[in-house]
């Protein structure tokens, strides 16, 4: 802990040297009105409905899983639209869902929950990559990596889970568009309890996160709302980051509003080398390089180092600069928040910055580094440092934006049969079949002459090929392609002309 804190201390000390060395604080900018409602309203959902476009449809078969059964066996049997109901019991497994539209739903009976138990041996409880996945009503505990991790699944719904000590992250959707994380309780996580990484159009609401290093983290993501959560007794409450070195480089349009962010003073038990390992214990909200973050209506109390900390990459610890990622926190808006009793036991470097600006009292809000087009609604209300460049916000609330979730699910696009056939034919079949020359398999022209108007004949053959020609090797079955793809490929193969 001492060493990790030292990192940010050293970083801030550099800033002080820079300031003394001639980096001037500009004059008070409060007379400038900055921003209006257009700042956050772009991309907002028109309906404001939270569950309309996320989660599984539940339209298919219900599979029941009971104590002693395998959840994964049910996933293997399930088809899109199906519901997997997990009854009370203890399940020691990693469940992975590489299918679309699946509901994984715990059944709670007389207060008894289904428990996924990692025994500190298993890596992750639930991995999903499909679109339209729901994970709900599970108690997940003692995994090493994550409770619930999504990789590129869109339209996800993760709710009503009780997650305890599941390693690095609790709920971690990555590369997802359109997702709702609601009514989960998470504790004992070594990094962020709820970590939204490289996602778009996300809503995180009504969760309780405590005894984690970070409560909720929005990282390299756009159009996120974090509201109505209770983040307490973490090292840091709510984080909005651009982490350098990731393939998607921006964070913007984040609204952090109406959360309780209370007593986040837990000693940092982050993994050495991780970005969060540099967070001082006692941080309410931390914005690192995130742009267009609006902070409104939160109750921020009892965080001993700072209530709200805005920083750039240069002043952050454990960070390697990335020329493709903008290091500054720009267009920050701090609207009205209930802030009280923060910064009462802060780190010496914040005290030094305070001295530099001739500020008295405990610092509630600190900005370090350049931050352009930023604003605060009321300059006089809180003790702040580094906010003289901030103008006065030209808007007082984001209330008219209910959500950034999409009105229609992401990526439910239809693929034209011709495109599907073309991609399969050139992308796979062409490895062995050319139009008019002999390769590993016979020329397409020969196949066309044989099957003419009978694509189903091709489908039947490639599904279960037999050796037909002495001068060619036997064809491997193409049954790994779905029936639709096989038919599209066959139809395309019969009409290709070169």
């Amino acid at each position, binding site marked *: 802990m001492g060493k990790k804190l030292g990192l940010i201390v050293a970083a801030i000390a550099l800033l002080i040297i820079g300031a003394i060395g001639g980096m001037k604080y500009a004059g008070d900018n409060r007379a400038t009105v900055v921003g209006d409602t257009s700042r956050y309203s772009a991309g907002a959902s028109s309906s404001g409905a939270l569950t309309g476009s996320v989660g599984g449809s539940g339209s298919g078969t219900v599979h029941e899983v009971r104590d002693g059964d395998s959840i994964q066996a049910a996933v*293997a049997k399930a088809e899109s639209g199906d519901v997997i109901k997990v009854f009370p019991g203890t399940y020691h497994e*990693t469940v*992975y869902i*590489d299918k679309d539209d699946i509901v994984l739903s715990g059944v709670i009976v007389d207060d008894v929950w289904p428990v996924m138990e990692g025994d500190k041996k298993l*890596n*992750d409880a639930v*991995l999903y*990559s*499909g679109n339209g996945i729901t994970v709900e009503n599970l108690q997940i505990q003692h995994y*090493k*990596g*994550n409770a619930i*991790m*999504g*990789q*590129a699944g869109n339209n996800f719904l993760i709710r009503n889970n009780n997650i305890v000590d599941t*390693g*690095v*992250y609790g709920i*971690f959707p*990555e*590369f*997802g568009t359109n997702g709702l994380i609601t009514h989960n309780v998470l504790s004992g996580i070594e990094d962020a309890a709820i970590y939204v990484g*490289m*996602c*778009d159009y996300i809503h995180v609401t009504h969760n309780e996160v405590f005894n984690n290093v970070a409560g909720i983290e929005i990282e390299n993501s756009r159009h996120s709302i974090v509201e109505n959560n209770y983040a307490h007794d973490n090292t840091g409450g709510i984080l909005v980051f651009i982490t350098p*070195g*990731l*393939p*998607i480089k921006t964070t913007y349009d984040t609204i952090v509003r109406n959360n309780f962010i209370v007593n986040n003073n837990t000693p940092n038990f982050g993994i*050495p*080398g*991780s*970005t969060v390992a540099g967070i001082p214990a006692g941080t309410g909200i931390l914005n690192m390089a995130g742009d267009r973050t609006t902070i409104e209506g939160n109750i921020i109390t009892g965080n001993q180092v700072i209530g709200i900390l805005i920083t750039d990459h240069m002043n952050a610890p*454990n*960070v*390697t*600069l990335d*020329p493709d990622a903008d290091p500054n926190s720009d267009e920050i808006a701090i609207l009205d928040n209930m802030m009280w009793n923060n910064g009462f036991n802060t780190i010496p470097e914040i005290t030094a910055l305070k001295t530099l600006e001739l500020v008295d009292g405990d610092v509630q809000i600190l900005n370090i580094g350049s931050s352009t087009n930023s604003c605060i609604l009321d300059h006089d209300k809180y003790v702040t440092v580094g906010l003289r460049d901030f103008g006065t916000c030209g808007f007082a609330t984001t209330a008219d934006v209910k959500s950034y979730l999409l009105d229609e699910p*992401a*990526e439910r*696009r239809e*693929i034209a049969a011709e495109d*599907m056939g*073309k*991609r*399969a034919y*050139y*992308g*796979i079949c*062409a*490895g062995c079949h*050319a*139009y008019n*020359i002999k390769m590993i398999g016979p020329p397409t022209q020969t196949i066309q002459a044989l099957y003419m108007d009978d694509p189903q004949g091709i489908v039947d053959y490639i599904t279960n090929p037999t050796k037909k020609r002495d001068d060619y090797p036997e064809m491997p079955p193409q049954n*790994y*392609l*779905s029936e639709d*793809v096989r038919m599209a490929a066959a139809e395309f193969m019969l009409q290709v002309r*070169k």
Partner: protein
Amino acid sequence: MRRAPSNKASLAGIVVLALCGTVLAEPQVELQSDCPPGFELTGNNACELRTLYQNYDSLHEAGVGGPRTGLPEARDGFSPQQIDLGRYLFFDPLLSGDDSLSCASCHHPDLGFADGRPRSIGIGGAEVARAAPSLWNVAFLRRFFWDARAGSLEEQMQGPLYADDEMGTTPAQLLADIGDNEHYRRLFRDAYPGSEGPPTLDQIYTAIAAFQASLISLNSRYDQYAHGYHDALTDREKAGMNVFRSFVARCAECHTPPLFTNQQLAVIGVREPDGRAFDPGAGATTDNPGLRGGFKVPGLRNIARTAPYMHSGTFATLREAAEFYTLGRGHALPVAEQDRVTVHWHIWEPDLGAEELDRLVDFLGALTDESFKPQVPSQMPSGLLPIGKLPEALAPHLGQTN
């Protein structure tokens, strides 16, 4: 300037002896008018990539995500003739200063388009500093070389072509060697219709890039799984896939599907083999001290074909390479580097068990697909033996050592 003719003449003599005059008849080389597999010939004589991955989207077109995520934008649209001309150039030792090496000497199709060596060997027989990376799927890459110092295939290839200790030619010699060859002059006219005069450097680079960008590997058993056929992988491979993408091992955080690279630079802190000096990697080619010891994250497709591993061949096997990641953050850094190297945040102590490492290796084996492997031309426009000096790993098998 062109090297002394005697140099080439003597080598040609050796080739004649080696072949006993059997194939040195006039080369009968014509360029393909069809696209290689994986490409559709479109109206303007352009080969456009086709793959089932085009059925999927990708967040911000970054081409990273999960099993069913779209690819980054590919370099495509070259003509069949340009691609095939590039194939001849790629395999022709005429492109080296002493006619001994072709691109394929270090990027051989039978060795995953690498060379099976820890570090490659140039025309003088001396070892260079780093390993030859695989060329599969370079069509999708944005940065080249281990230290990411080149921004295009055309820029990249000028490194090895003109480095004294690699192919050791010069722009002038290359233009002369190609331009003096009547077959190449004809083939360049076919590949660049309407172009006047002798072949240009840009035409040479374009053709080689066109060929390299045609090396597509997206039909492994893993891909069958990704497209929805879950029986394509064995239970062990599936277990390995789940270790691979778990947040304990964190492999997929940088080796992100569908290409199994996020194309970023990462400092992972591998020791150099055999007492070699620390390689600062991207720390020496950027002004970013945080990248000291940083290298480009390589894609893992056909990785089972390209041992040994890492930028200078530290690990002989995939098992050893996988084990590196569980031996502790910074464990292999020299003492002198420990305070000035910032190891990537995903390098930690995941405490993977022996069985998990075995499963990772199983899974990596499911990323092999060489179904679009191009043919080595049977004869070269230069009349030289295709490929030239073979990688040692292949020479004994083919009875050919030059």
